């Protein structure tokens, strides 16, 4: 990668994760051996940002109340913001979930919303800033000792976790597991299986019903994860393409690139918040469905 910077290398550099995984020769983080890694590979950058932003969420929300945990004092600053978030989530849970009492749903929705919002917001950090910084840090730390870090540019670092399908599908998978858990515990295993097999054609076409319902059932988490991934990936992609205008074109087009960056960033704020909200709302909706006992 130390070779000449081309459009193709620039884009692929931005779309490649820093991956550590198991190759036949053992564990390595060498980007040239990613092809040899099987399933047991981790996108360290995605997971790093995901955990860091999750920790930020926990820290901020914990701090907002531990400082001021009395109901008699007037809330101010961060506490107002935190309470606003919680009220927002409570309202949504209330409207989608109704009277069902489940103390997990609201915290889950809150976590999902704030966490995804933070991860999406990483998209608004200039596309080259963090990857280049990370490359230099990695190069400085590793020096000549690590053969695959030949220069700061040879270090891959993808910043926005939600542009990694593993992250979005991973969260969707977690929610999928919760859906199954609540379907079984609330409805009972029998009713859950009945729901999957006795619709829509009655008991004489159980295999057909099962296939249809299974598609329906599996499609939910996959669409949930891919929707978020697709939106953010596309947004990131456009940022990268706009950034290319600055690097590879004449001055007027470069100036246009600045303008487009601003416009797209402003528009992207909407997508960032909207996708976080959609993910949260669907999470609540799927879990509400898992609690629905009546036949539909």
């Amino acid at each position: 990668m130390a070779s000449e910077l081309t459009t193709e290398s620039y884009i692929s550099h931005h779309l490649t994760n820093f991956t550590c995984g198991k190759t036949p020769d053992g564990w390595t983080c060498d980007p040239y051996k990613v092809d040899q890694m099987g399933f047991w590979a981790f996108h360290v950058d995605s997971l790093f940002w995901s955990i860091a932003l999750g920790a930020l969420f926990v820290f901020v929300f914990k701090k907002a109340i531990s400082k001021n945990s009395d109901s008699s004092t007037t809330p101010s600053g961060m506490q107002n913001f935190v309470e606003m978030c919680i009220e927002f989530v409570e309202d949504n849970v209330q409207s989608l979930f109704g009277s069902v009492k489940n103390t997990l749903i609201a915290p889950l929705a809150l976590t999902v919303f704030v966490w995804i919002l933070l991860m999406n917001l990483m998209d608004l950090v200039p596309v080259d800033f963090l990857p280049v910084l990370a490359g230099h840090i990695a190069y400085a730390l590793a020096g000549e000792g690590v053969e695959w870090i030949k220069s700061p540019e040879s270090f891959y670092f993808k910043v926005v976790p939600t542009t990694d399908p593993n992250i979005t599908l991973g969260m969707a998978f977690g929610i999928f597991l919760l859906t199954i858990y609540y379907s079984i515990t609330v409805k009972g295993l029998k009713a859950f299986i009945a729901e999957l097999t006795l619709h829509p054609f009655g008991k004489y076409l159980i295999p057909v019903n099962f296939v249809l319902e299974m598609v329906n059932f599996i499609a939910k988490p996959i669409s949930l994860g891919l929707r978020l991934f697709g939106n953010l990936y596309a947004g990131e992609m456009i940022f990268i393409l706009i950034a290319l205008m600055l690097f590879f074109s004449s001055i007027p087009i470069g100036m246009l690139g600045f303008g487009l960056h601003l416009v797209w960033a402003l528009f992207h704020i909407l997508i960032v918040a909207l996708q976080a909200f959609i993910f949260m709302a669907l999470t609540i909706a799927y879990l509400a469905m898992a609690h629905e006992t009546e036949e539909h």
Partner: protein
Amino acid sequence: MNINATLLAQAVVMIVFVAICWRYIYPPILSVMQEREKRISDGLEAAKKADDSLEEAKLAFDKELDQAKAEAAEILEKANNRASQIVSDASSKAEAEAEKILTAASTTIENETNKAKEELRQQMSDIIIDTTQKILGDEISKEKHEEILKKAAEEL
């Protein structure tokens, strides 16, 4: 886009964060919010109650005030009556006393007058007898003409 173990790791991370939020973050904030909500509604209710009781107190106060005024007026009237009665009593008593003193005085005056008259009469008869004796010599003595003298004194 290659799916790998990152997916599982992310699912685990998510479960951990959701558990932290569920266990340590959400309930305290929510309880603070609900507590505050309750405090506010309690406060509003208390304010309403206070308003009501103020209204009540005002009514009671007005009633009490009216009653007190009425009582005061009554007491005043009674006092006035009593005062005028005392005054009239006193004046009638004084009049009676004056009358009494007056009668006593006039009786005394009459007695004195009578006494003086009697004395005068006595002295007159003595003077007359003296004079007459002097004129007539010893022809007429007091003892001899007691009868006549008495008659004359009565005529005086």
